[in-house]
């Protein structure tokens, strides 16, 4: 295993700039924790690249010196701090914090809200964010609040129908709520199921219940382990004596 000084020399010789001191992990795993300064090239790509860091990490590990790299991206931190200051200044009554993550030249932004934001407020924040990011040649990939996105997606609805079919809208709503989802209303769920039915993945029976179509079952696929949807279906049938 290399000493701390030898390790710094090795890493710097690969044109990777170490920030601060190299630390030996205290958890007894005989590895080093290394802070690395990263910058952005003219295409907004990270330098050194993750691939380069991975290769150096692998090489060091194979030679008996495991390391963990912690990246210090001052540029991304500055852009994030600027965006935070800009949005907080404009929407101090509505938002508590702003977080940003940059992947290549795309930005993902999360807004911590103080109260439920209206669509108009969100649109205004979003357009301000887009304008701000343009100054740094960054495009806005996602813009979301940090509240739990808890409505059941199409996939979650299909999984539940598969397990409990034939199932009415009201019964499905209960099942989804038991699984921890929020269902805004039966009408909302009916519309969602009807849209899935029109895409051919569900069938509506005469009795007013939904069942899966072959297309739907194929789309969901299966698993050959304890998470198998077929096993879940069998257990659900057994529980209701079906």
């Amino acid at each position, binding site marked *: 295993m290399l000493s701390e000084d030898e390790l710094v020399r090795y890493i710097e010789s690969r044109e990777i700039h170490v920030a*601060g001191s190299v630390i030996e992990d205290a958890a007894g795993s005989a590895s080093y924790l290394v802070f690395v300064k990263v910058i952005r090239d003219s295409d907004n790509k990270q330098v050194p690249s993750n691939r380069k860091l991975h290769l150096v990490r692998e090489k060091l590990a194979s030679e008996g010196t495991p390391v963990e790299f912690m990246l210090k991206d001052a540029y991304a931190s500055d852009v994030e701090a600027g965006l935070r200051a800009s949005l907080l200044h404009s929407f101090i009554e509505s938002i508590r914090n702003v977080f940003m993550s940059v992947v290549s030249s795309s930005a993902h932004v999360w807004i911590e809200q103080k109260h439920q934001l209206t669509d108009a407020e969100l649109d205004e924040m979003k357009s301000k964010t887009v304008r701000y990011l343009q100054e740094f040649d960054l495009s806005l990939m996602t813009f979301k609040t940090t509240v739990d996105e*808890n409505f059941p997606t199409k996939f979650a609805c299909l999984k539940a129908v598969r397990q409990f079919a034939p199932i009415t809208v009201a019964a499905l709503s209960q099942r989804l709520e038991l699984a921890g989802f929020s269902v805004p209303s039966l009408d909302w769920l009916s519309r969602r199921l009807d849209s899935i039915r029109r895409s051919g993945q569900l069938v509506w029976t005469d009795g007013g219940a939904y069942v899966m179509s072959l297309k739907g079952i194929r789309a969901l696929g299966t698993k050959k382990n304890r998470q198998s949807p077929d096993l879940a279906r069998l257990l659900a049938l057994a529980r209701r004596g079906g």
Partner: protein
Amino acid sequence: MEVVALHLAEEALRLTRQSDRDLFGRSAFNRFYYATFLIVRSQLHASIGNFPTTHSAIPEFLTGSVTRELSKGAQYAKRADDAELSKLCSRARTATKNLADILRTGYSVRVIADYKPEILIEFENVESFGLNTVLISEAKAWPHKALAMSVTLSSAWKQLHA
């Protein structure tokens, strides 16, 4: 825990004796890390099976099996024509990487704060200080950022596994 961390950070800036400032400053980093760790654990431990209990194992777990599972989830979502879930999985992957980075950085700074007294707190100005190039302002954001990222990850996880 975060309240304690904030108090320690304020004290580090208020005090005048160098050794006291250093002790309060490094303890502030320590508490911000633990506040972050506890938030992540409370958000994810119950929902994600086999969630590790050791501090150093969590980032690798996140970037390894959790990220793989989200990638698989994105494929399932695509097969089911569920664009909404596909986007959520993509956001959750980004959030998971961010979370792992926060925990790695926080853990490393915590190790320095607790076991490397020879690496001193550096006072930038009257409002800021850092430890091994990590500023206290960055540490202050860890708990909030970790909560935001954990919520995104647990939302995607629930859609895939509920």
